[in-house]
């Protein structure tokens, strides 16, 4: 009997990943009616189940190859299809790791920063993680739009829960997010107009015959701009710094680690799977433009980060710079740079979420937000600051952390493409990254404040922070193995192997 149930669950794992989230979100208020404190455990439980499903799916993809799940048994392109391949299996695992660890971290952090809002907060929390997982798993482009809006609406509300200024930040985020979602919707409309299908695999089959049509160009351009706003690629990043600075710390950690990565995943899926590389080489070479914009973003983000005194704001600007690295890896579009870009999705998720968790832990125990007041924190919060050190070193790109390997591969990609300007940009920006983190290190480790007693964050906040720091360290050792796995996918879309 139990074996039968398990085999059923395993068979329907792709849709259960989403259903668990949706049911979990709508039962949260009921749980909250019984006891408010239970909501956080409920959110952690749902995230844990999603994490288990994601890991199972990724494992299954590595073992047997691409999984295709037909919703309601309807054959695609008529029915909605969920597809898991190496790329999105990996992104699923990354997103659900962050969602699970932030849900544990958030329990104490939310109670301190925004007390009394647990019920609505955790409902939205489960909705946003489900929305992001949905964007990643779906093989239907309109379904992607729907999940994008589920996630985004939850994100606007979650940002607004923060302090007074968060309301204005959230309003601007909503205006930008709506423009982005509308562009995506319109782009889907143009592609549907030309092909008559919404299934991604079917689109990629039908589009090559229509490459020279202007409507296809308009549709693809609208989709790229739409996803770029969600990803906060450089000139479209304006919503990001305020939203990350003023939202509750745990929400900053969640959004920085996952939402922008999901946007860049959608961009990769669009460019390499749906449309195909040939289109961009033969008909509209957007890569030249995208790579220059991405490198401008890398430099801009780092320079702005140096100028900040608010720790969370510094990390937000650093995010813009790091997203630039991923975008550069994607737009150089060769085997090394793409491998580096995908690896950096994982790297930046664990590093940046970990660093935001540290910023939140400092706010929790001492209420300090400014870098200039962090003097001597290493003696007050030794473990938290050790996690900060590892995360920051990985961000700079010191071996053997994961940040080193991802940047190294993007650098190899730039050398292979013969783009020496981008090589210089990558190296120079690493220097700038070292500069703004050094400013913090100097205060933490060499500053004096006269306090000698240890005042650590509670264990439920400390543990996820340390786990993410360790992941960014282990990620470095796993990097060759991971790139071996991506190699399957990269060979499929580029026709060139990484090694």
């Amino acid at each position, binding site marked *: 009997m139990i074996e039968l149930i398990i085999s059923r669950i395993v068979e329907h794992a792709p849709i259960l990943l989403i259903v668990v989230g949706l049911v979990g979100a709508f039962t949260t208020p009921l749980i909250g009616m019984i006891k408010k404190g239970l909501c956080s455990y409920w959110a952690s439980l749902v995230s844990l189940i999603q994490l288990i499903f994601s890991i199972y799916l990724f494992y299954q993809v590595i073992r047997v190859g691409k999984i295709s799940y037909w919703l309601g048994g309807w054959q695609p392109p008529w029915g909605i299809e969920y597809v898991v391949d190496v790329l999105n299996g990996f992104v699923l695992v990354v997103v659900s790791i962050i969602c699970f660890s932030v849900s544990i971290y958030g329990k104490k952090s939310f109670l301190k920063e925004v007390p009394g809002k647990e019920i609505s907060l955790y409902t939205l929390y489960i909705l946003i993680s489900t929305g992001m997982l949905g964007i990643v798993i779906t093989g239907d482009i*309109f379904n992607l*739009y*729907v999940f994008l*809006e589920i996630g985004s*609406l939850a994100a*606007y*509300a979650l940002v*607004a829960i923060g302090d*007074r*200024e968060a*309301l*204005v930040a*959230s*309003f601007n985020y*909503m*205006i930008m997010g*709506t*423009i982005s*979602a*509308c562009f995506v*919707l*319109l782009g889907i*409309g143009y592609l*549907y*107009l030309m092909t008559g299908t919404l299934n991604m695999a079917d689109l990629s089959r039908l589009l090559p015959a229509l490459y020279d049509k202007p409507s296809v160009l308009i549709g693809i351009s609208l989709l790229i701009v739409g996803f770029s706003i969600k990803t906060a690629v450089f000139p479209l990043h304006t919503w990001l710094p305020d939203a990350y600075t003023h939202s509750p710390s745990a929400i900053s950690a969640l959004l920085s680690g996952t939402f922008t990565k999901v946007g860049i995943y959608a961009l990769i899926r669009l460019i390499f799977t749906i449309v195909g590389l040939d289109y961009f080489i033969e008909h509209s070479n957007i890569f030249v433009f995208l790579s220059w914009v991405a490198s401008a973003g890398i430099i801009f983000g780092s320079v702005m980060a140096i100028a900040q005194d608010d720790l969370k704001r510094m990390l937000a600007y650093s995010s813009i710079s790091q997203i630039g690295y991923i975008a550069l890896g994607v737009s150089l579009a060769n085997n090394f740079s793409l491998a580096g870009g995908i690896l950096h999705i994982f790297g930046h998720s664990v590093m940046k979420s970990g660093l935001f968790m540290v910023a939140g832990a400092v706010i929790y125990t001492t209420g300090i937000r400014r870098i200039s007041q962090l003097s001597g924190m290493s003696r007050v919060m030794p473990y938290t600051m050790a996690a900060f050190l590892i995360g920051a070193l990985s961000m700079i790109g010191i071996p053997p952390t994961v940040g080193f390997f991802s940047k190294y591969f993007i650098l190899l990609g730039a050398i292979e493409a013969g783009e020496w300007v981008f090589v210089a940009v990558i190296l120079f920006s690493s220097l700038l990254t070292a500069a703004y983190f050094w400013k913090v290190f100097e205060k933490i480790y060499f500053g004096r404040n006269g306090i000698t007693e240890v005042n650590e964050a509670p264990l439920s906040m400390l543990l996820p922070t340390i786990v993410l720091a360790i992941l960014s360290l282990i990620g470095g050792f796993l990097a060759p193995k991971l790139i071996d796995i991506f190699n399957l996918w990269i060979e499929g879309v580029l026709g060139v192997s990484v090694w």
Partner: protein
Amino acid sequence: MVLEIILTKYNYFIYISLMALGFYGMIGKSNLIKKLIGMSVFQYSIFLFYISIADVEGGTAPILVKGEVVYVNPLPHVLILTAIVVAVSTLAVGLSLAVRIYREFGTLDENKILMGLKND
């Protein structure tokens, strides 16, 4: 020639001009409610686009009846039903944010709100 194009494809011109209008409202206006109105117009113009691409001249609703009948494509209508729900919920989120901002800052003018933030 030009007039003919405009007259035969007027719904597309209406959608483009509404979209531009909505975009201006979102970006150019400083009152938050006007921004939200612009946002709605922007979203509705896209619905018009979807309905336009579904239309078949002389087509009826896709209901099975006897005889040769031309149907309009029902799929974009279904997609737009979903998008309308999304638009309504976005507007709800936007309006509730505007209410909260008005309570906090006592104004809906974006410039005054930013001034208020600077003075803190």
